[in-house]
C-alpha cells in the first residue's frame, strides 16, 4: 500500500504528463495528417516552420489564439460557449483510464503507466465518448444557424447509431478476457500461439470485431468517409460553422483527441496493447512496451489518414443504413458466435 502523499503526488505528475503528452500528440497528429495527406496528394505538406514543418502545430496554435474570437449576435450564448468546452473536456478525459504501458518504478514508487486503473475502464471510456455528443449537438443548436443545426443533428444521430455497433464489437473482446479493465484485457493477450502468432485478440477470432470497430470508430470520430456532420461541401462546416478562434480550435482538438483515444483503444483491445519483444537493459525493458504501444497507435492513425486521402464520402441515408442494416447485425452475429465458442470451450 502506497502512502497517500506519494499517491497524490504521483497522480498529479501523471496527470500533468498525460495531458502534456496528449496535447502534443494531438498537435502532431494534425501535423502527421497534413504531411501524409500532402504526400498522397503530390504535395509537400507543411515545410516552412521548422525542419520538415515540425513547428507548424505551434504556429497553428498561435494563429488560433490570436484570431478574432467572433460570437455571432444570434447565438444562445451560454451553450454556445459551453459546447466547445464540453467537447474538449470529454475528449481529453477519456485518456485518464488508458494505460500506455506496463508498471514502472520511478524514484522508488512503483506505478502503472496510467492515470488510474479502474476495473471498469472500458465502460468509462464508452460513457465519456457517449457524453461527447453533447458538445457537438449543443454547438449545432446554440449557433442558431441552419447549417450548424443540420450538422449538429447529423452528428448526434450518427454518433448514437454507431456507438451501438462500437459497443457491441467490443463485447466479444470482453467475453474473451472476462474483464472490463483495460490492463487485464491487455494482459490476457500476452504470449503466442505455436510460438510465433501473438495472442492478440484480432488473432483470437475477433478479426470481424476489429473491422466493425474500425468502421464504427471512423463514424464516431466523424472522419472520412463518415464525415457527414462537417461535410464542407454540403453543410459548409457543419456544427462548427459559426465558431472561430480558440472555440473552433477546441473542436479541432477534441476531434483529434478522440482519434487518438480510438486508436489507443484499438491497440489495447485488438492489437495486443504494449506486448512485443523485450530485450536489453532494465531501463530499456521498461521503455520498450511504451514504444510498441505508440507504434501501434501510430499505425492506426496512419490508416485513418490514408483513408482520408483516398475515399469519397457517404450520403447521409447511406451512412445510417450502413450502420443499422449492415454493421449492427454483423456485430450481433460476431457477439453470438464469440459467446458460443467461449461457452463451448469452458
Amino acid at each position, binding site marked *: 500500500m502506497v502512502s497517500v502523499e506519494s499517491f497524490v503526488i504521483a497522480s498529479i505528475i501523471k496527470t500533468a504528463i498525460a495531458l502534456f503528452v496528449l496535447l502534443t500528440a494531438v498537435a502532431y497528429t494534425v501535423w502527421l495528417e497534413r504531411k501524409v495527406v500532402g504526400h498522397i496528394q503530390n504535395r509537400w505538406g507543411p515545410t516552412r516552420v521548422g525542419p520538415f514543418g515540425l513547428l507548424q502545430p505551434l504556429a497553428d496554435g498561435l494563429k488560433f489564439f490570436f484570431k478574432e474570437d467572433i460570437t455571432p449576435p444570434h447565438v*444562445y450564448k451560454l451553450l454556445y460557449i459551453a459546447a466547445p468546452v464540453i467537447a474538449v473536456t470529454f475528449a481529453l478525459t477519456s485518456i485518464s483510464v488508458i494505460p500506455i504501458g506496463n508498471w514502472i518504478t520511478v524514484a522508488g514508487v512503483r506505478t502503472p503507466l496510467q492515470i488510474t486503473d479502474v476495473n*471498469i475502464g472500458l465502460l468509462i471510456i*464508452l*460513457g465519456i465518448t457517449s457524453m461527447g455528443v*453533447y458538445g457537438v449537438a449543443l454547438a449545432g*443548436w446554440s449557433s442558431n444557424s441552419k447549417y450548424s*443545426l443540420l450538422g*449538429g*443533428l447529423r452528428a448526434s444521430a450518427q454518433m448514437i447509431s454507431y456507438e451501438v455497433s462500437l459497443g457491441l464489437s467490443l463485447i466479444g473482446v470482453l467475453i474473451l478476457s472476462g474483464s472490463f479493465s483495460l490492463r487485464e484485457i491487455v494482459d490476457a493477450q500476452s504470449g503466442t500461439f505455436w510460438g510465433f502468432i501473438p495472442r492478440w485478440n484480432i488473432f483470437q477470432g475477433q478479426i470481424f470485431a476489429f473491422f466493425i470497430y474500425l468502421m464504427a470508430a471512423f463514424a464516431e470520430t466523424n472522419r472520412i468517409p463518415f464525415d457527414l456532420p462537417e461535410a464542407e461541401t454540403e453543410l459548409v462546416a457543419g456544427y462548427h460553422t459559426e465558431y472561430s478562434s480558440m472555440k473552433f480550435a477546441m473542436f479541432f482538438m477534441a476531434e483529434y483527441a478522440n482519434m487518438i483515444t480510438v486508436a489507443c483503444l484499438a491497440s489495447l483491445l485488438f492489437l495486443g496493447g504494449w506486448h512485443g519483444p523485450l530485450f536489453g537493459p532494465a531501463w530499456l525493458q521498461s521503455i520498450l512496451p511504451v514504444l510498441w504501444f505508440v507504434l501501434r497507435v501510430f499505425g492506426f492513425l496512419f490508416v485513418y489518414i490514408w483513408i482520408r486521402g483516398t475515399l469519397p464520402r457517404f450520403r447521409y441515408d447511406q451512412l445510417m443504413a450502413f450502420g443499422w442494416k449492415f454493421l449492427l447485425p454483423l456485430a450481433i452475429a460476431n457477439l453470438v458466435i464469440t459467446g458460443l465458442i467461449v461457452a463451448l470451450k469452458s
Partner: protein
Amino acid sequence: MLHLVLFLIFGAVCVAGAVNLLVQRHPINSALSLIVVMGSLAVEYLLLGAEFVAAVQVIIYAGAIMVLFVFVIMLLNAGEEELTSGSRVALLLGIPGILVSSVLVAWVLLAHSGTEAVPAGALPGPPKIIGWLLFHDFLLPFEVTSVLILIAIMGAVVLASPPESVQQSKKEG
C-alpha cells in the same frame, strides 16, 4: 471520510440540478439539468461501490436517452415557455402540500427503516453479480419487462406514424 464528503457534494449537485430542471423555462436548459442529475447520480453509485451501475447510468441515461431528449428539443426548436397566470391557488396550496408530504415521507422512511445505513462499496457492483441477478434470479421479471418495453415501442411507432391518408398523398406526390 473523503468518500462521505464527495457523496454529500454530489448529492447536493444532484438536488440542485433537479430544482434547476423545474425552475428553468427553456426546455434545453431543463434537459441539461437533467443530464447533470443523471451524471451526479452516477457518481453517487460509483462512491457506493457500484461501478457497473454507475457506468451504465452514464452510458444509457446520460449518453443515450438524454441525447434523444436534446435531439427532440432541437428538432422541434422549442422556445421558452410562457409563465402561466392564475396559478395563485397552486402556489397557496402547493407549497404547504409539498412540505407536509415530504415530512410524511421522511417520517415513514425513518420509522420503517430499522436497518443500518448502507456502507460505501457494499452495493452489488461487479458486472458478474449483476449479470447473475438479472439472468438467473430475476430472469422472469427481466424478460417480462423487456416484452413490456417492446410493446411500448411498437405502440409508440404506431402512434407516431402518419395516418394512411397522409402516406397515400406522399406516395403520389
